[in-house]
């Protein structure tokens, strides 16, 4: 049983998805999906233990040995992200039975759960697999289901956002496919571990440079790196709030994982960061993302859109960590991936509860809401403080390591920009706080009550995790450090 954990991680949600269609009744499906996600969470925690005890786990799918068969390869990096995705996916789905009542029509709720599980399975699949083509397949599984999830939004703009995301996402995925094809052409293998060893011999050919370029741009599209982020704000804004919470917390992180995996494991840090000007490109784009997206976020009137732009900015931070080009910088990126998932999960769940009561999330309509929905707004405040990087929240931990990595490298200006970005976050978070607490309650808000327990509990679990991992960072720090170092060693 333990030996099969790597594949169970992906299979459980994948099998559970069609089962939902057989159960049909949304109420039962809801419980069933919660059980399934909980199972994946337990599996991922089991995998952490296995990896810490035994090192890298290799699982040959169907008994076909790598490099011929498909290999699932679990190392510190992907086990770290498996925990992240399954944790967030589980907590968010616990809010679903209550929240989708107001956002998704009764007859579509079962399909929502199916799409959710498929997306979840796709993301876990990308993380678990050791096969390059498999990455593409799982990427498309998760993408196609996320287009569906976004299109479930009530506003008709959700359809348009989903369509735009579909076009951009497909172009991105096709670019990745081209990259994988070119690599296969030169090496004759699709196993990423095998690719890494074989690429050395051919690494100075134009084909490999081209392959790298296609992959790089394709992945950057998926991870919404500035200026390829255009699909993200609308998709996050008009999707059902719960979907936004899930996607914001997990999807972009998995895309960053793909980037890390190819840049460091497959091509190797030396090739990617030394031969090619990848560091410089990432540095410039990351900086522009942080400054530009944070500034745009300040001017948003829809809180969901505000936090969507904030996500683009936070992705910028993760990319900056990469661009520093040291194990410390990589570790900062990994930490921020985890921590940002916790923050945005909590914030978007809080917005879910706002949307549940108000039917929308415009800042102007949220005047004085702090008195009507104290617990929800308290969650926004804590999540916001975490975003700013106040001590005792997870945001501080990631900021600390990012600045530390920059200073160690002697990049003082970068450290300044990172900290300056926190000030921009302070401005946009405080706009919400001031509206929620200082403005007189608007007439339509007078009858509004606190959100139901079904949403409050998962939301506060995430808020408390924000604080817990901000105080006791041992789990995240040690695991990300392990992952960063193994990735760096592998890349040499």
């Amino acid at each position, binding site marked *: 049983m333990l030996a099969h954990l790597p594949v169970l991680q992906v299979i459980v949600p994948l099998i559970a998805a069609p089962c939902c269609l057989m159960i049909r009744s949304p109420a039962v499906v809801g419980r069933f999906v919660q059980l399934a996600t909980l199972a994946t969470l337990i599996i991922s925690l089991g995998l952490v233990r296995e990896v810490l005890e035994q090192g890298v786990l290799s699982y040959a799918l169907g008994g076909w040995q790598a490099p011929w068969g498909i290999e699932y390869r679990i190392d510190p990096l992907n086990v770290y992200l498996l925990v992240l995705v399954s944790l967030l996916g589980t907590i968010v789905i616990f809010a679903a039975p209550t929240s989708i009542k107001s956002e998704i029509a009764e007859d579509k709720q079962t399909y929502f759960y199916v799409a959710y599980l498929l997306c979840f399975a796709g993301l876990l699949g990308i993380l678990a697999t050791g096969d390059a083509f498999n990455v593409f397949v799982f990427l498309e599984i998760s993408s196609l289901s996320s287009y569906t999830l976004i299109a479930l939004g009530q506003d008709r703009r959700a359809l348009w956002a989903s369509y735009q995301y579909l076009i951009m996402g497909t172009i991105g995925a096709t670019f990745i496919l081209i990259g994988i094809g070119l690599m296969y052409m030169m090496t004759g293998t699709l196993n990423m571990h095998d690719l890494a060893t074989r690429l050395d011999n051919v690494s100075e050919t134009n084909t490999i440079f081209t392959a790298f370029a296609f992959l790089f741009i394709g992945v950057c599209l998926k991870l919404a790196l500035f200026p390829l982020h255009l699909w993200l704000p609308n998709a996050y804004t008009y999707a059902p709030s719960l979907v936004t919470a899930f996607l914001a917390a997990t999807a972009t992180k998995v895309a960053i994982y793909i980037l890390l995996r190819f840049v460091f494991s497959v091509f190797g840090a030396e090739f990617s960061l030394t031969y090619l000007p990848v560091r410089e490109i990432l540095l410039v784009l990351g900086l522009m993302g942080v400054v530009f997206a944070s500034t745009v976020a300040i001017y948003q009137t829809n809180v969901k859109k505000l936090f969507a732009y904030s996500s683009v900015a936070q992705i910028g931070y993760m990319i900056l960590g990469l661009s520093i080009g040291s194990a410390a910088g990589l570790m900062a990126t990994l930490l921020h991936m985890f921590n940002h998932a916790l923050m945005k999960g909590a914030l978007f769940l809080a917005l879910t509860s706002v949307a549940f009561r108000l039917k929308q999330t415009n800042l102007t309509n949220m005047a004085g809401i702090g008195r009507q929905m104290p617990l929800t707004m308290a969650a926004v405040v804590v999540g916001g403080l975490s975003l*700013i990087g106040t*001590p*005792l929240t997870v945001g501080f931990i990631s900021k600390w390591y990012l600045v*530390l990595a920059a*200073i160690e490298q002697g990049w003082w200006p970068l450290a*300044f920009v990172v900290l300056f970005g926190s000030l921009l976050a*302070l401005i946009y978070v*405080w706009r919400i706080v001031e509206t929620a607490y*200082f403005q007189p309650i608007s007439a339509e808000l007078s009858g509004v009550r606190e959100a139901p327990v079904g949403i409050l509990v998962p939301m506060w679990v995430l808020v408390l995790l924000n604080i817990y991992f901000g*105080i006791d960072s041992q789990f995240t720090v040690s695991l990300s450090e392990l992952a960063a170092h193994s990735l760096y060693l592998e890349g040499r």
Partner: protein
Amino acid sequence: MILSLAVLLQLTMIVPLLAAVGLLVFRRQPNIREAVTLIAGVVLFVLVLQLYANYQRNLIANVHWLEILPGLVLSFRVEALSLMFALIASLLWPVTTLYAIGYMRAHEEENQTRFYLCFALAIAATMAICFSANLFTLFIFYELLTLSTYPLVTHAGTEEAKRGGRTYLGILLSTSIVFFLLAIIVTWVYAGTLDFLPGGLFTDATPQWVLSVLLVLFFFGVGKAALMPFHRWLPAAMVAPTPVSALLHAVAVVKAGVFTLLKISVFVFGLDLLAEIQATQWMLYLAGASVLLASLVALRQDNLKKRLAYSTIGQLGYISVGALLATELGIIGGSMHIVAHAFGKITLFFCAGAILVAAHKTKVSELRGIGAQMPITMAAFFIASLSIIGVPPGGGTWSKWYLMLGSLESGQWFIVITLALSTLLNIAYLLPIPILAFFPGGGGRVVISSEQIKEAPLPALLALCLTATLSILLFLYPQPFYGLSQAILADTGAPYAIAGN
């Protein structure tokens, strides 16, 4: 009751938190609620006195909580400077509570539970800052202090309060995130530790330019010290109810700032190194300029609380100067001034609040002849003014004396002249207020008839008399605090973890 030292130390932070819980429990019964804060305040002071008594016997408490990041532990340790700050903060908390009870009721403020709650949280954070054993712990509670005082500044909930709160939070968080945090991380990178160690953390390997940059980052980053040009938050915070201005913006918050600067000067840089850094001299000029400019601005303020706020900025400059002189006398003067200014300025704010409650006046120009109506308040105002100016029988005499000696000793003529000029300015902006209150002049024209003696509510009056008395007592018996300020540099850091039982 005998408590182990470690428990004692932790209780100083836990008691205010417990008080906060008690406040929530009794939020519907104002009398019990206020009794809770008052009792917590007295208990806290007794606890700090216990720590002080143990310190005198060389029993030094220290506590480690948890390791937030590898090598960065939340830990606390008693030390002379922290005792000084903790003593005044814990002594003035119950006094201010007493005052607040009179003030808040007379003023019929809303959300009083939230007020007392945030107050207790701010005190807990202040205690944690006092006893922080490393820069990391200090930074965490420094930020928490900012956040817990934000609801107090914006207590009124008006547009003006919102604007004030924005400036308050904006400046304090910006400086601490961009400069202070950066400085801490740089220190960590170069020194490899953030513990406060006697003699400083840096080795000779640290380049001179890094040290200069660090010094500037620290002095600007600790925005709570209100060194110009990052002083604007303090006048902005004056929209808060007067008890807040009194305890937090004359004692806890601003003193946390200068306390941090003194700590950094002595235990991060070390005085020997500090004296060698080039930037020290520039920052000294800046602090001197800050003293003079703030006093000049204070002269022009008609709003009494604003005038006091600018006066505070100037007085904080004195303490920064004391730290930057990098001599023993400077540190003694600076740390003594923390105490002296606390007693003096809190009295002045109490008086300002009493005038507001009893006579509904906020402007200096309206106070002519008010001595007839509020003789006790204005007498206290007079005594406190003397302390701020630094003439007997005010407690400020001693600290200014040592600061003057320190700057003479190190040949800082600019500072000597600054201190002298500033004293004159202090006289010019403070003394006319009580003098005109009692002797309105203008042919004996009395604005308010003497029959209506109408002082502030009794608890408030009691509190301001108490602090005025403290100010005089400090002049008569400076020994305990002088002893502590001398001990700051004598601290060897060695007697870690001697558990008392």
